C-alpha cells in the first residue's frame, strides 16, 4: 500500500472497451470518452471511494498486448512495470473475449493481483453471445463481473471485485527452447514489481521499449549476455519469438473461449452493421462522406459561424454588453488611456472578449458537438478507410484522419493526439501539416464568413491552394523525413448511436479547455496591440513590414496588425482581417491572398508550445522557420499570379 492510506487502482484493457466510462463512474471525473480506439493518450487520475476505502484510480491507454507496439502502449506497460499499485482492473469487451484474454494471460504471468470486468454486456447479448461465467472462473481463477458501463449496470459488483483482486492461475507452458531461455534470463534479472518470468518473456518477445528499464537495472555485460540468449533462442525458430509466444497464448485463449462462450447461430445483420458497411463502401461511402461534410458545414459554418455569431456579435455584444460596458467604463474609469484599454479600438471588452465569445465561442461549440457525434458514432475510423489512399500520397495512412479532423477543431489538441500514430515519421508529418495548413474551427469560421462575401470562385481558389500546399508539403516531407511508412491496421468499432449526455460532457470539457487556453491569449494579444498602438509602435512595425505585406502580398499595410496577432492565435488574426474586409479595405483578390497566408501562417502560441512538448524544441523551431516564409511565398505567388491573370473575383 502506498502512502497516506490511499490505495492505487489501475484500469487496463484493450482499446475502446469502455475504460474511460468506468473511470468516470468510479471517480466522478470526466475522461474523454469516444467510440474511437486510442482516445486516451494521457493518463487520467482520479479519486474514488471503493468499499469504504480511498483509491487513486488511473485510466491507462488501451493496449492489445503488453508487448508494446506504439507510444501509448508503452505508457501502460511502463506503469505496470514501474509503479506501485494495489489492484488492477482489467476491462474487456464481453463479446470479444478472444482479444482480452491475451492481456489476462500476461497479467497472470506478471503475478499481479487483478480482477476482470466483462463490459458491454448489452452488445454481447444483442450479438447473441452467451458467456458461461462459472466456466470462465474455473479456467482463470477470477470472478469476472459482467457490466454495461454506459448504463451503470454492474457497477456495484465491479467495485467489490476491484477491492478484492486475486492472482490468476492462468499459465502457458511455452516451447522448450523458450522456456529454457526464459529460465536463464529470469536468473539474471533483479527483483521487480512484476514477476521476473514475465519480464523474461517480454525480452524474448523482442520488446525494444524495455531497453531503458534494463539499462537502469543491469550492467552492460549482463545486457550483452541477455541479447546473446535472445539471439541464440531466435536461431532455433523461423518465426519471430514474440510471435511464437503470442501463438501459444492464443491457443490457450481459443480453448478458453470455446469452453466459455457460445454464439447463437446466424448473427443477424442489424441496422447498425448495415450502416457500418455502407459508410465504407467504395461507391456509397463517397456520397455519405459528402453528406457528412455538408451537414457539418450547415451546422458549423451556417448555424454556428453565421446565425449564432451574428446574434452574439450584433445583439449580445453590439446591443447589450458593449453599450453598457462603454457606459460603465466611461464613468468608472475617467482616465482616457485606461478607458481605451477596455473599450477602445484595441479594448479588452470591445476587441478581445467580443472576438473570443462572440466569434470563436459559437463556432468551436458547434464544431465540437459535430465532432463529438462523429467520434461517438464510430464514423471516423470508416472515414479513415475512405481517405487511406489520399493519406498514402503524403506518407501517412488512414489513421492520421483522427488528428487531422480534430485539427479542424483545435490544432493544439490534435498535436497531442498524434501520439496514436505508430511511427515518429508520421507524427512529424502530421504535426507539421497541423502547424501549416489545417485551419482550426474558429479560424475556419471566420474564413468562411469572409469568403461568403466574395465570388464563389474565391472559395475554390482558397481551398485548392491550401489543399494543394498541404498535399505538396506532405508529399515532400514524406520523401525527406527518414523512416518507413507504418502499416494501416485499424480496428473498426461498431456504429453506435451517440449518447447525448456523453456528447455534451465531452463538448463542455473541450470548450473549457479551449476557453482556458484561448481567452487569456486573446486578452494578452489585445493588450500587446493596445500598447503597440499607444506607443505608436504599430505604425513603425507596419512600415517595416510594408515591403512584405504591401509589396509582395499586395495587401494594405493595416493588415500587418492582423498578422501580428496571428502569432498569438490564428483565428484572432483571421478576425482582424475580417474587420478590415468589413471596413471595405480589402478587395476580393486581397481577401483570398490574405486568407491563404493566414491559413498557412505560423501555429498559434498554444500549438507551438504543444509542438515543443510533443516533438521537442528543435523540430518545433524548424517547423515555424519553414512555415512563416513559406506562407508568405505562397501568398506572393498567388498575389502576382491572380493579378497577372487579371482575376478580380467580383
Amino acid at each position, binding site marked *: 500500500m502506498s502512502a497516506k492510506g490511499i490505495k492505487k487502482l489501475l484500469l487496463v484493457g484493450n482499446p475502446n472497451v469502455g475504460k474511460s466510462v468506468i473511470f468516470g463512474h468510479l471517480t466522478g471525473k470526466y475522461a474523454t470518452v469516444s467510440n474511437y480506439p486510442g482516445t486516451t493518450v494521457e493518463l487520467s487520475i482520479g479519486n474514488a471511494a471503493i468499499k469504504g476505502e480511498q483509491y487513486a484510480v488511473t485510466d491507462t491507454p488501451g493496449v492489445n498486448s503488453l508487448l508494446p507496439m506504439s507510444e501509448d502502449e508503452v505508457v501502460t506497460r511502463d506503469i505496470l512495470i514501474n509503479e506501485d499499485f494495489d489492484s488492477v482492473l482489467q476491462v474487456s469487451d464481453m463479446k470479444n473475449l*478472444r482479444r482480452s484474454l491475451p492481456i489476462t494471460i500476461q497479467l497472470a504471468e506478471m503475478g499481479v493481483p487483478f480482477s476482470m470486468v466483462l463490459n458491454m454486456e448489452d452488445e454481447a447479448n444483442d450479438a447473441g453471445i452467451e458467456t458461461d461465467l462459472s466456466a470462465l472462473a474455473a479456467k482463470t481463477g477470477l470472478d469476472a463481473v459482467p457490466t454495461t458501463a454506459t448504463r451503470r449496470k454492474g457497477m456495484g459488483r465491479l467495485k467489490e471485485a476491484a477491492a478484492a483482486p486475486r492472482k490468476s492461475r492462468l499459465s502457458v507452458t511455452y516451447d522448450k527452447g523458450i522456456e529454457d531461455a526464459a529460465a536463464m534470463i529470469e536468473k539474471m534479472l533483479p527483483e521487480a514489481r512484476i514477476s521476473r518470468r514475465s519480464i523474461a518473456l517480454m525480452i524474448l518477445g523482442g520488446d525494444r521499449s524495455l531497453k531503458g528499464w534494463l539499462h537502469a537495472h543491469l550492467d552492460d555485460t549482463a545486457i550483452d549476455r541477455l541479447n546473446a540468449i535472445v539471439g541464440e533462442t531466435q536461431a532455433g525458430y523461423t518465426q519471430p519469438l514474440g510471435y511464437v509466444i503470442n501463438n501459444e497464448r492464443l491457443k490457450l485463449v481459443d480453448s478458453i473461449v470455446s469452453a466459455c462462450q457460445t454464439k447463437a447461430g446466424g448473427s443477424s445483420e442489424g441496422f447498425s452493421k448495415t450502416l457500418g458497411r455502407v459508410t465504407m463502401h467504395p461507391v456509397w461511402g463517397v456520397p455519405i462522406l459528402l453528406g457528412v461534410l455538408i451537414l457539418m458545414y450547415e451546422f458549423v459554418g451556417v448555424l454556428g459561424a453565421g446565425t449564432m455569431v451574428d446574434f452574439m456579435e450584433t445583439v449580445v455584444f453590439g446591443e447589450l454588453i458593449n453599450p453598457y460596458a462603454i457606459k460603465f467604463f466611461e464613468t468608472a474609469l475617467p482616465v482616457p488611456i485606461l478607458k481605451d484599454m477596455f473599450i477602445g479600438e484595441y479594448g479588452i471588452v470591445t476587441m478581445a472578449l467580443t472576438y473570443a465569445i462572440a466569434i470563436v465561442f459559437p463556432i468551436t461549440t458547434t464544431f465540437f458537438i459535430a465532432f463529438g457525434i462523429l467520434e461517438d458514432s464510430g464514423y471516423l475510423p470508416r472515414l479513415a478507410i475512405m481517405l487511406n489512399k489520399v493519406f498514402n500520397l503524403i506518407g501517412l495512412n488512414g489513421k492520421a484522419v483522427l488528428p487531422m479532423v480534430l485539427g479542424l477543431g483545435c490544432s493544439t489538441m490534435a498535436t497531442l493526439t498524434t501520439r496514436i500514430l505508430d511511427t515518429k515519421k508520421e507524427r512529424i508529418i502530421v504535426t507539421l501539416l497541423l502547424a501549416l495548413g489545417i485551419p482550426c474551427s474558429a479560424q475556419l469560421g471566420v474564413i468562411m464568413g469572409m469568403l461568403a462575401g466574395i465570388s464563389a470562385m474565391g472559395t475554390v481558389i482558397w481551398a485548392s491552394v491550401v489543399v494543394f500546399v498541404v498535399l505538396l508539403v506532405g508529399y515532400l516531407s514524406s520523401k525527406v523525413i527518414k523512416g518507413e511508412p507504418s502499416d494501416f*491496421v485499424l480496428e473498426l468499432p*461498431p456504429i453506435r448511436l451517440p449518447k447525448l449526455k456523453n456528447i455534451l460532457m465531452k463538448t463542455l470539457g473541450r470548450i473549457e479547455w479551449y476557453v482556458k487556453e484561448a481567452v487569456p491569449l486573446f486578452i494578452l494579444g489585445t493588450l500587446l496591440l493596445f500598447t503597440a498602438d499607444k506607443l505608436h509602435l504599430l505604425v513603425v512595425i507596419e512600415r517595416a513590414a510594408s515591403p512584405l505585406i504591401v509589396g509582395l502580398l499586395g495587401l494594405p499595410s493595416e493588415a500587418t496588425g492582423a498578422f501580428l496577432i496571428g502569432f498569438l492565435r490564428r483565428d484572432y488574426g483571421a478576425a482582424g482581417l475580417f474587420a478590415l474586409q468589413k471596413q471595405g479595405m480589402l478587395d476580393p483578390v486581397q481577401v483570398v491572398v490574405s486568407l491563404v497566408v493566414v491559413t498557412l501562417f505560423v501555429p498559434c502560441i498554444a500549438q507551438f508550445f504543444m509542438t515543443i512538448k510533443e516533438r521537442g524544441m528543435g523540430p518545433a523551431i524548424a517547423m515555424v522557420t519553414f512555415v512563416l516564409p513559406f506562407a508568405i511565398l505562397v501568398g506572393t505567388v498567388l498575389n502576382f499570379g491572380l493579378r497577372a491573370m487579371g482575376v478580380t473575383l467580383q
Partner: protein
Amino acid sequence: MKPENNNINCDINCAKITDEMVDEFMESIWLIEERGKGHKGGRAALCAMAVDEGAVNNPVMAESVLAQIATDGYVTLDGEAVEFTPKGRERARHIIRRKRLAEKLLAEVLSVDAREIRTTACRFEHILSPEVTNSVCSFLGHPPTCPHGKPIPQGDCCKKLSHYVKPLVMPMTDLDPGSRGRIVFIAPKDHSRMDRLSSLGIVPGTEVSLHQKKPAFVIRIGETELALDTEIAGEIYVKELR
C-alpha cells in the same frame, strides 16, 4: 528410384534403358506433336532432340530406346513416323502434367528462379505419384497453363470439377468479398508486422471473413472488425471455407 546419372554417363555397351529415359522420350514426342509441325518424318528429329536434352548420350542409344518403347506398346513406328498409341498418349499426358504442375508450384508458390525450376521440375516429373499430383493441382487451383504459358493436361481432379476452382491456399487478396477463410500462414515483410497482426488476433488457424477489398480491406475476426492495407492483406494466406 534409380539414380539416372549413372545411366546417362554409361557406355553404350552397358546401356540399360531406364524409366526416366522412357519418360524423357515420351515428353519429347509430346512436345514435337504440340509444336504442330506434324510428327510424321520426325524420327530423326526426335532422336536428335533426345540427345540434345541429355536424355540419352548418343543417337544409337536413342534408337534403341525408341525401339524399346515401341515394343512396350507406347508408340508405333512407321519409317520416319513416330505415333503415340492410346496407352502411350495417356502416359505422356501424365508426364507433361506432372512436369508443368511442378513448374507452376515452384514458380508461383515458392518463387524459385527460372533455371532452377527447369532442372527441378524435370526431376519432379518422374517421382510424383498420381495422388500427390492431384493434390498439387488442387492446391494450385487446377491451373490451365504452366509458367511458360503452355497447356497443362487435365487430371481426374480437374475433370471432376466442372467449374474453375480456387486454389486451396491463396493470399487474402484473391478471396472474394463476402467469403470466409481460415488463415494458413502469414508471410510478412518484417517481423514487427507479424507481431502487430498477432496482437490483433491474426494468426494461423483463425477464421476470417472478408467484407470488402476497396478502398481498403475490411475483415472480421470473431467480433473484431479490422481495416488493412492491400499490401498486408496480400501477405495473409488463407484457405477458403465454404
